[in-house]
């Protein structure tokens, strides 16, 4: 099988949510010593992007999105130790993500975390109802590139602004990119907070994270 054909089959396996097939193809890529980085980007990456398009089109819903991302993540765990060059693949970047204090709506944040992981980011998911100070402490400790803050309620989204205010007060706002998420978040709110961006859905969030880190 040519490498190009393999990409197409991998992409189809992800879209068909066929876990066995996806793992089989990942193992095949390893056995045949294909360029693993290309397999990840052009096979699995293309597949998960199609999953995102199907979500936008109303063909796929939460269960399909989560399954697709989990299959991809499992396959990446198989592939990454076999990256050529004998060195461990550098992650795309480190992200700490949380739903802000007072807000227990975790599903949107969890989807974004899953998709970021599926694409190769190293993600620290702190869960829901997390104080701004704790998010920042973790960001510093883990030396992350991006801080993601989710809020579903208009009453808790003020906490997103608080994260940025604390970063400024500590004089470390230039060390991190801050991205916001949640139903009430708009571009105007992002501007108001001085955040670096927001995304309408998990697929866009991945694109946003990549563009902020110039990937």
């Amino acid at each position, binding site marked *: 099988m040519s490498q190009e054909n393999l990409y197409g089959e991998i992409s189809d396996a992800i879209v068909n949510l066929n876990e066995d097939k996806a793992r089989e193809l990942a193992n095949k890529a390893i056995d045949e010593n294909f360029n693993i980085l290309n397999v990840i980007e052009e096979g699995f990456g293309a597949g998960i992007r199609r999953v995102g398009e199907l979500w936008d*089109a*109303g*063909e*796929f*819903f*939460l*269960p*399909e999105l*989560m*399954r697709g991302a*989990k299959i991809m993540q499992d396959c990446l765990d198989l592939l990454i130790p076999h990256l050529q060059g004998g060195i461990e693949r550098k992650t795309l970047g480190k992200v700490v993500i949380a739903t802000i204090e*007072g807000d*227990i*709506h975790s*599903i949107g944040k969890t989807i974004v975390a899953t998709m970021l992981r599926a694409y190769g980011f190293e993600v620290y998911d702190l869960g*829901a*109802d997390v104080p701004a100070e704790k998010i920042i402490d973790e960001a510093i400790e883990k030396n992350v590139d991006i801080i993601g803050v989710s809020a579903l*309620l*208009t*009453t808790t*989204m*003020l906490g997103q602004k608080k994260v940025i205010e604390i970063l400024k007060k500590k004089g470390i706002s230039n060390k991190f990119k801050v991205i916001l998420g949640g*139903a*009430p978040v*708009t571009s105007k*709110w992002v501007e*108001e907070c001085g955040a670096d961006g927001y995304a309408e859905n998990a697929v866009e969030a991945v694109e946003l994270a990549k563009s902020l880190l110039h990937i």
Partner: protein
Amino acid sequence: MLFHDWLKDDSKIILFDGAMGTEIFKRGIEPGKIPDLLNIEKPDIISDIHKSYYDVGSDMCQTCTFGSSSLNLKKYKLEDRIEEINQKALENIKKICPPNSLIVGDIGPSGEFRPPVGNITIEQWQASFANQVKILENGVDLWHIETISDIEEMKTAIKAVKEASKKPIIASMTYKKTPRGYFTIMGDSLKKCIQILEQENVDVIGSNCTIDSNEMIGLIEESVKLTKKPLSAKPNAGQPKIDENYRPFYEYPPNDFARDIHDMINLGVKIVGGCCGTSPQTIKEIRKIIYSL
């Protein structure tokens, strides 16, 4: 029973209430982690909000118990107070409910999902809803199971209610509009949900939250083709925004909302009210429209 009489009366449009959360905020109270706890901490505020809806013409209002199931309370470490919260919620509405008006027991989603999205089991759902239902059964006239996005969770909640109660059930799913029509985020189509809710033999098939009143007109248009059961509509007043003083507001004016409700009544909807962002002002406008019919 009054509710059944209303359902049978072709000339009767039943007016439900509007939002609770945004009204709490308007009274200068931080909703904090869960508005349901205010049933204990600020009971007068909760009673006052219910009263404001009955005063402008709501035929029925729902208890402030959207998040008072065991699974949901557990997230706030309040599961031990389930009895106290639901009991107080009943007292807060009972003491101001006018004659010939009804009290609706509000059951919201558990906030937990089945695999692959989450890890919950049907049995855990069932136990969680059952705990809440058995307390509220002691004072409500009927039930509103609402804002549910997984039809399996809805089936479980209906089962839990029916095991403890013979009172009427309004079962409201929450849908988003996709290029392929109305679906829940879990992928249940409007058609599938209506079919299942018919099989479950609920008294009223409803939809609430997520979409605004304008988008809900289309949903009602499709629903009336799919079922002869009475329908309920409780849409949002647009999407939440934050103003320059960091106060939340909803962009959809009560007049426009009420006009959309008028369209839904013309299509055949039986129960009307509002979800997030609606207020007594919204309900007042709808009452005017119902009087004018």
